[in-house]
């Protein structure tokens, strides 16, 4: 990702671009106006020089005596670049072609000493002036004064160079202006963005769990409200999280204490109940019945306590996964074997299925589902392992009477028993709830369905 200052949608970049745009618009407009005026001034100046020189040259010839108004006599009087016209006749051809002289221009040359000029292009000007010459060759009493018009095209000297220099200076000034404005914009933008950056850093730290982070309240006036709101928000979060931590710690202690207090008497009862059950054949009938009841109730109580402790651990968010790369097939084999179910449960599985799971919890899941199928279903009970994209799939199948559709979701509830006739004789009613909790903890799902007279529990576990 590009750094913030390089991104067009970044505040800093936008401010820099705005600054440059303002400078370009203002300086460009000013330079344009100044250039236009300067251009006009340069032309006027060059034109004035050209006209003054032309006038001086021609007027100095006024009243000059010539021997006949002929091309030969004119050559010594007028400079070569002047086209000399007398009564419509060209007596000397200079820089102005007589056919190119507009009639409006030549018609204006009727009065002596009245200068006419016309700008031809950006670098040339046409000049014209009439004077009187005295013709010494005319007959006595004849006309001795003749009106002679001189027309010339002269260059406007240095106009383009001056204009080029002017444009160069304008371009350089504009470039420097853009650079300086860019730097200035960057500096101002950085100054403006700094409090926002601080706010961003503080928000990131708070999001990462650093709840001690606070912003100084004496910063930019416009951000004061935001700063106060941010600080209040973090302070409130800190208080809530501390309360949650305390509550979690209390729950953890409560679960640990309850677990310890319940387990300690059971720790004494369990060995005694085992001894009692071993002695049942040697006891008188009534005592044997009593011993059997005590022993079986202790077994149920032990299981109930274990299930309740495990459930309260899930409820108080104390249940943690100890993940390892496990072969689900070997794990299932071990689960069946350790409970003596290998001979009564069919296992259908590929060579191996490697998944990242907590093997103790998956063992509990398998044991609960298979145990349930063996207790409430009918043989044959079958465990099928397979994979589908991203998931390991465990099917636990039995051929029992099945579960009515209305109970299919309810059976996962705590203490729910489908078969009311079973009363309290079997299980704690927590086994399936714990199974669900353990599967969910892995990010998996569990379903039950009736397929061709078979009850199928399906567990899906993410492979990674």
């Amino acid at each position, binding site marked *: 990702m590009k750094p913030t200052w390089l991104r067009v949608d970044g505040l800093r970049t936008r401010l820099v671009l705005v600054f440059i745009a303002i400078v370009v618009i203002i300086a460009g407009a000013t330079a344009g106006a100044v250039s236009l005026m300067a251009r006009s001034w340069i032309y006027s100046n060059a034109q004035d020089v050209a006209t003054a020189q032309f006038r001086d040259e021609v007027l100095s010839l006024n009243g000059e005596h010539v021997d006949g108004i002929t091309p030969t006599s004119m050559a010594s009087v007028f400079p070569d670049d002047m086209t000399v016209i007398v009564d419509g006749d060209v007596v000397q051809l200079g820089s102005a072609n007589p056919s190119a002289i507009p009639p409006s221009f030549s018609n204006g040359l009727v009065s002596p000493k009245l200068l006419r000029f016309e700008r031809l292009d950006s670098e040339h000007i046409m000049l014209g002036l009439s004077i009187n010459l005295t013709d010494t060759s005319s007959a006595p009493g004849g006309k001795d004064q003749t009106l002679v018009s001189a027309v010339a095209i002269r260059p406007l000297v240095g106009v383009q160079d001056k204009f080029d220099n002017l444009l160069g200076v304008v371009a350089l000034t504009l470039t420097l202006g853009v650079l300086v404005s860019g730097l200035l914009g960057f500096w101002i933008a950085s100054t403006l963005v700094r409090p926002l950056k601080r706010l961003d850093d503080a928000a990131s730290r708070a999001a990462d769990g650093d709840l001690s982070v606070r912003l100084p309240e004496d910063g930019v006036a416009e951000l004061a409200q935001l700063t106060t709101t941010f600080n209040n928000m973090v302070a409130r979060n800190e208080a809530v999280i501390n309360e949650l931590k305390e509550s979690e710690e209390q729950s953890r202690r409560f679960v640990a204490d309850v677990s310890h207090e319940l387990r300690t*008497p059971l*720790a*004494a009862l369990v060995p005694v109940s*085992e*001894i009692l059950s071993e002695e049942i054949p040697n006891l008188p009938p009534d005592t044997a019945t009593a011993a059997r009841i005590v022993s079986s109730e202790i077994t149920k109580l032990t299981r109930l306590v274990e299930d309740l402790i495990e459930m309260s651990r899930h409820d108080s968010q104390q249940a943690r996964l100890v993940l390892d790369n496990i*072969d689900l097939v070997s794990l299932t084999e071990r689960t069946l074997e350790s409970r003596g179910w290998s001979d009564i449960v069919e296992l259908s599985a590929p060579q191996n299925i490697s998944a990242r799971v907590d*093997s103790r*919890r998956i063992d509990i899941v398998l044991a609960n589902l298979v145990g349930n199928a063996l207790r409430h279903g009918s043989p044959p009970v079958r465990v099928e392992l397979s994979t589908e994209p991203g998931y390991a799939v465990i099917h636990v199948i039995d051929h029992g009477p099945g579960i009515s559709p209305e109970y299919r979701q309810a059976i996962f509830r705590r203490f729910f028993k489908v078969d009311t006739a079973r009363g309290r004789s079997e299980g704690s009613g927590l086994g399936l709830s714990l199974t669900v909790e353990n599967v969910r903890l892995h990010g998996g799902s569990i379903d039950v369905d009736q397929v061709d007279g078979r009850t199928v529990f399906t567990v899906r576990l993410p492979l990674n």
Partner: protein
Amino acid sequence: MVNILFIEDDPAVAEAIMLGLNRLGHTVSHRPDGNTDFDDALLAADLVLLDLGLPGADGYEICRRIRTRSAIPIIILTARSDDIDTVAGLEAGADDYVVKPASPRVLDARIKAVVRRSAPTTPPTETLPAAETFGDLKIDRASLKIHKAGAQLTLTPTEIRLILALTQNPGLVLSRQQLLSAAWDQEYLGDSRIVDAAVQRLRSKIEDDPAEPTFIETVRGFGYRFNSQPR
């Protein structure tokens, strides 16, 4: 038959468990707290069965004290079932961790397994190489003696099995399950934490700086690898 030293403060629990274990053929001597000096009792015992919540010294402390002077197998038998307690117990040097209530038969099986693991293994000598040396670590598979920088280390049987398993395949990553099968000869369902705890203890003995281990590397998400050429 195993000679067991049982340290348990609750008289009813102690009596019931002793009754159960005695019926299964074990000899159990009982201590009600952690204040006693265990020298004589330890000499006579094959295994210590230890509760955690005890008056006087706490169970972890007793476990560490025993470990400083003996490699005797220790099983913690406690009502505390939190993961953190299990890990702390195993890291303190226990070989197994059993949560109460436990049936005497289950306890008997765990006791036998731990004692079996602790018995010195005598593999055929012809397959054994001479003592191997990795850096300043010398491992003699025949005599089961491990030396670091010339000094012999006091390792528990579990730790010896673990280091033998690791050094048998230097450079190879072994998963926790593989190490469980190799160093603990029974299947511990779910208790891969027992491997982590044992590795921690082993590192504290063989590494120069256990916080920066060079011999036993953790391969995140997989397991552990023994580095035969430490930095």
